[in-house]
């Protein structure tokens, strides 16, 4: 129980700190909107094309906005060496990982909810009939991204070019999440929902289980000095 209480303390601290400035969430959101704008001019999708490319464009937007926000988790600790303070406390590394991961997840979901709405708005995409499914898949995909993103953000933080390292490390490993999320999203918008949906959802769940367990086990090695 203490494990979850401590993870909760880390989560609460991260949320409260972000809530004071709202820097990360606003920049993620703005970036997401800019990406949508770029996509419009780069692809100019008509309604047929929007239906075909929509899931991909949507998840690309989530991905880019997410990458921006991922650094937040540990950048905020850098200023007053907060991470050292955490390492001193009788708290397991796993709890630090979990707390930060859930915080990252929440910020990303918040931004994604707004981006989703804007996407539907800008591209005249009707989400309502499949909103429930959409939420579920967004959760699964974002969880996958946040789970590896959090540990890799901690890893990159120790390098000389931490901002660049994170995407280099994260994107190849997160590829299955992107594939799974895009395919699931595409599947729910075909009528009837594609049979592949079942596979991809199970795939994402399996991915999440593996890539939450592994970081939980290995996070202490990242924090050591």
């Amino acid at each position, binding site marked *: 129980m203490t494990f979850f*209480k401590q993870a909760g303390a880390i989560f609460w601290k991260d949320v*409260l700190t972000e809530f004071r400035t709202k820097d990360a969430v606003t920049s993620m959101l703005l970036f997401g909107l800019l990406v949508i704008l770029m996509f419009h001019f780069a692809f100019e999708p008509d309604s047929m094309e929007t239906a075909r490319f929509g899931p991909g464009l949507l998840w690309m937007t989530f991905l880019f906005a997410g990458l921006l926000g991922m650094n937040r988790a540990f950048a905020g600790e850098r200023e007053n060496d907060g991470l*050292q303070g955490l*390492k*001193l*406390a009788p708290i397991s590394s796993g709890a630090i990982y979990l707390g930060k991961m859930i915080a990252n997840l929440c910020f990303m979901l918040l931004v994604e909810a707004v981006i989703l709405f804007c996407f539907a708005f800008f591209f005249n995409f009707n989400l309502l009939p499949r909103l429930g499914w959409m939420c579920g898949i967004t959760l699964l995909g974002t969880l996958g991204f946040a789970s590896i993103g959090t540990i890799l953000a901690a890893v990159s933080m120790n390098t000389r070019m931490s901002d660049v390292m994170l995407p280099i490390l994260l994107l190849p490993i997160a590829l299955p999440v992107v594939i799974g999320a895009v395919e699931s999203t595409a599947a729910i918008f075909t009528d009837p929902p594609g049979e592949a949906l079942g596979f991809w959802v199970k795939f994402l769940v399996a991915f999440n289980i593996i890539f939450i367990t592994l970081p939980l086990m290995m996070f202490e090695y990242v924090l050591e*000095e």
Partner: protein
Amino acid sequence: MADAPVVRLEKVEKWFGRTSALQGVDLTVQPGEFLVFLGRNGAGKSTLLRVVARLVRPNSGRVEVCGIDVLRYPEAGREKLGFVAHSSYLYRNLTAFENLQFFARLYGLKEPEDRIHKVLRWAGLEKNALRPIHGFSRGMQQRLSIARATLHDPEILLLDEPFSGLDLEASELLGEWLESFVANGKTVLMATHDLEQGLQGARRWAFVDQGKIAEELPGTDADIRDQYKKFLKEKRRDVF
């Protein structure tokens, strides 16, 4: 009555790549001692403290804190230590109260509110408890940092150059406070590169040079002054 040593280091070595930080350190500290590590920058004082605090894992040697082998059981006994470094480990956008609340939760304190108010009162920060700390002066931040380090009532307090950036008044206040900490039976280990204000309570001195404890002396800070100057002159070989 000989109590078990509260800190024990045996042949501790630490190197970072090609640089040797600690070269075979042996140290025993009894409970209630106030020990100061003196030495120039880069001598290894900070690394020594961080090894005791378990922030740094030595490459070889044995480290025992309150009788626990900390290399085999790194999680155990962390609540017995408090560490004050140059960085405050605090979060600038949270208030003083919120910062302490966070640490109270991490340490699993039983009645956090009472304890928080107590340390805030000691640190003279009660009036500023609800201000975000980015507006705090260096002295206030340092006081809050010490409040954070003592929130969980640790047995041993480790301080790494805590006087840097403090004015005369703040230094004296810190010195008095350290004395009272020791008077309550706690142990203080401190690293500093100069004989500054506020060291009136210290009774044991270790001169650190090139990753080793070169000399150990008892006495008050007044007694040690000349000895330390001599020590620095002898060791002045490759400074320039």
